């Protein structure tokens, strides 16, 4: 358990700071989620909301809390009082425990609780959420809480689903009531999945309220969902994929010459695991890639293949498992669920011994799977010598890079990391970057199998599956993710500062000693809001080449 001694003084400073740095509140509200135990997450949500309050006067309404499931499965030190204290310091008029409220509503013991003029403990009408959307969120939440790839007709799963369904109905009611009965500027939420987060997001988008969702990494990184830009009937993240693809093409790819040095520097740093994203293998020595060329790759390949028992003379197709219960159904996927895709791959691989197959578990699978999904599947294929099932963390990045000739994933970040090294990736569905042109993407099982066969045939024929342009695109995306869409701000600090006293000391110093004009977080939020961009950006990309260069300040001649 962490101990914070600088938190209360920080809250006093923050309170004074925000009092003079946002517009006076009016009747409108900004809804802010604060359901993470990590104060860095809530800090980002509140900072983003207050940056918006500089241009859109509004009151802050914070919903928080954790239920027994989250406390048992995900959280270890959730502290509602700390969150309330921080919310108050950032000017929130209320920070209520939505989980507790939902529990009382389910039990029929809710008492009056007026939030933003709405009695959330009283009678509330049913949400008008489409049944299919509601069912999808209930299903995904139940899978996550049960830590399974899919639900079965077992009493345990069905009981859990019934419980989640009852709670989801009440979540939907209170979120919808808050949004319907208020003039809501925006909803700020760290996640868009599961009932406690996702039902608020769904209600907001359905009622034309923009959603901003900060990322738990970097400085201030955030995506934005503007309802008018989202395609109807698509999963919540799908519209974002399209917009990111367009932005990448119009601004990043178009300025690739200007970004050449930055792109290479980012790649060089990424190989040494400096910076983000590296959350699955953060900061470990076995996370860096030392390989530089075909010769050293070949030598390491020989060694790695011998250790694992693969034939180094044949191509290796590496299948990266997902955290099987993570955010199901929030983007376009070719197969019914993440687990089914992995199972189908094992089935396919069993009869394709012309190549090696390396099946890797997700590094944090125990947090997402209580059903021994990976081990059970591995046990079904112990006879196939050309199939190996391994724990991902039992292989270093050097080994993986030396062995892998084709990456298979649904939406994993490996589909950026490996193409950036000239190793092709086939995605079974969309991801944030899947329309940036450096992976091959299938949207149906038929397409997927066809493309997979073509990829294997091409590998065996020695054909190039990823062009130099695609490698450049992958490196540019890595740059954009780590730099272009990451806003360094003294008001949140870098994620790696942690959430201890050091963070609150730095925030306090920044609030006390730095004049706020042109604060990057404020500038970025203002830009995003005015232009309806899909994410925060470090610089203004709509300037001409000279203007972009002035902002990027690249190494080189003026």
């Amino acid at each position, binding site marked *: 358990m962490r101990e914070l001694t600088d938190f209360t003084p920080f809250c006093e400073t923050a309170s004074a700071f925000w009092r003079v740095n946002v517009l006076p509140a009016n009747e409108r509200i900004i809804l802010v989620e604060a359901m993470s135990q990590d104060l860095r997450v809530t800090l980002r949500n509140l900072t983003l909301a207050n940056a918006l309050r500089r241009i859109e006067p509004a009151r802050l309404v914070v919903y928080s809390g954790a239920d027994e499931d989250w406390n048992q499965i995900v959280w270890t030190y959730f502290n509602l009082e700390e969150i309330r204290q921080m919310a108050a310091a950032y000017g929130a008029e209320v920070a209520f425990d939505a989980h507790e409220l939902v529990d009382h509503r389910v039990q029929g013991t809710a008492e009056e609780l007026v939030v933003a003029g709405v009695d959330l403990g009283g009678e509330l009408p049913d949400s008008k959420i489409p049944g299919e959307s509601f069912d999808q969120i209930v299903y995904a939440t139940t899978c996550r809480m049960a830590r399974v790839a899919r639900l079965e007709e077992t009493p345990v799963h069905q009981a859990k689903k019934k419980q989640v369904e009852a709670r989801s109905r009440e979540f939907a009611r209170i979120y919808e009531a808050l949004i319907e009965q208020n003039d809501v500027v925006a909803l700020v939420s760290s996640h868009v999945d599961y009932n406690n987060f996702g039902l608020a997001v769904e209600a907001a988008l359905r009622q034309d309220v923009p959603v901003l969702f900060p990322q738990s990494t970097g400085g201030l990184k955030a995506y934005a969902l503007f309802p008018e830009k989202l395609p109807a009937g698509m999963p919540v993240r799908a519209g974002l994929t399209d917009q990111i693809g367009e932005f990448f093409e119009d601004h990043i790819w178009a300025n690739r010459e200007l970004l050449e040095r930055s792109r290479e520097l980012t790649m060089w740093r990424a190989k040494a695991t400096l910076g983000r994203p590296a959350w699955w293998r953060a900061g470990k020595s076995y996370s860096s890639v030392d390989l530089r060329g075909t010769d050293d790759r070949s030598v390491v390949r020989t*060694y790695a293949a011998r250790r694992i028992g693969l034939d180094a003379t044949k191509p290796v197709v590496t299948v990266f498992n997902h955290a099987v219960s993570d955010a199901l159904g929030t983007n376009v996927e070719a197969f019914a669920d993440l687990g089914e895709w992995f199972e189908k791959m094992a089935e396919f691989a069993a009869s394709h011994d012309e190549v090696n197959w390396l099946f890797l578990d997700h590094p944090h699978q125990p947090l997402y799977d209580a059903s021994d999904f990976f081990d059970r599947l591995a046990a079904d294929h112990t006879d196939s010598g050309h199939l190996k099932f391994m724990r991902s963390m039992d292989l270093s990045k050097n080994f993986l890079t030396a062995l892998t000739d084709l990456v298979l994933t649904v939406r994993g970040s490996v589909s950026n990391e490996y193409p950036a090294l000239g190793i092709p990736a086939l995605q079974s569905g969309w991801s944030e970057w899947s329309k940036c042109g450096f992976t091959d993407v299938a949207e149906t099982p038929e397409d997927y199998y066809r493309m997979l066969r073509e990829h294997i045939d091409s*590998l065996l024929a020695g054909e190039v599956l990823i062009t130099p342009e695609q490698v450049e695109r992958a490196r540019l995306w890595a740059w954009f993710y780590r730099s272009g869409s990451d806003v360094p701000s003294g008001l949140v600090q870098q994620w790696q500062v942690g959430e201890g006293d050091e963070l609150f000391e730095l925030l306090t110093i920044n609030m006390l000693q730095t004049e706020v004009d042109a604060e990057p977080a404020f500038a970025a939020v203002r830009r995003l809001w005015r232009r309806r961009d899909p994410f925060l950006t470090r610089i203004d990309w709509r300037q001409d080449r000279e203007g972009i260069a002035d902002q990027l300040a690249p190494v080189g001649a003026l």
Partner: protein
Amino acid sequence: MTANFRLPSLQLGTSFDGPILPLEVPGILGKGSASALCILDGANRAPHRLSRLVRAVALLGIKLADPSAGVRITMRLLADDLATSMWDRHMLRLRGEPIPEDEEYVPSDVSTRHRMVEVTAQGRSRALAVLALRNNDDGTVRQHVSFELGADEIDESGLVMIGLESPAKAPGWARANELEDPLVGICVARIMIDPIDERVPAGVSTGRPGVEQTPIAAANPGFFVVNPSGEGGPTSVRIAARGAGGERLLGRRAKVKHPVRATRDFYQDRRVETSAPAVVEVVDLEGNTLLEREVPEDENGRHVFAVPGGAGPVFVRARKLLGGQPRHVNWGVKTRPASG
């Protein structure tokens, strides 16, 4: 030999990759910052040594300036207090237990345990080493292993890939009292690379310091390893019981206090029947038992046996037959090429 599959689209380098300064032979790598140490996997670069191992498997890639000639590679491996500390923290992490602050950390007692390392080069096993740190070692125990790499084993890239791992098929008696994840914390202090002007002789690693050029195979861990000569022929192993000693003989202090005197001092306490045979077992890296028999003692108190040529590195357990029972004693070990 069939060539490895090569991916034509590979683009692993970046324009920020600094030049690698290959190692001129003869040469010594003694710091982690050495440019010729171009690949490091499962290990950290060490500021004042070469590397510290942090995983169950480690790889060190060394770029040589002239790949056209064979080389003799000698590695100095250490187990020390820092190795114990790293291993402790690794085990705590594995068990999901909190890592204590420095002032609260109490090192585990590893004084009855040992570590084994299999050294490979270019994917082939070359040597074994044993490291057994004891309380009277002043915090460090060193072992050296040497092996040869032929010119035909180094391609034109000049890259020599040295692997370190736990020997997978070590006999049970070598596994007894071995640390779990034995590589974690081990220090590769330096690597010396020389031309093959002299062939590498067979070598012994006992885990413990030697006494006056003689490796001492202590009763604990109760075995030692023999590494083959560069020529690969049979090796004659000569062992002689050290009549007394225990830990007293083996530490740095033993070098100050002459071993003969130490022997004399403790002779009454630890008398060894000098006429008894030794029960010797020799096991190769594949787990095959190459030798398992009683070896008589000669008139000089020595037991002599041979490790067959081509056996590669082997594990040896030798026990003195005392009162009809095989018992661990301290051995002095010497090797030389076997005739025939």
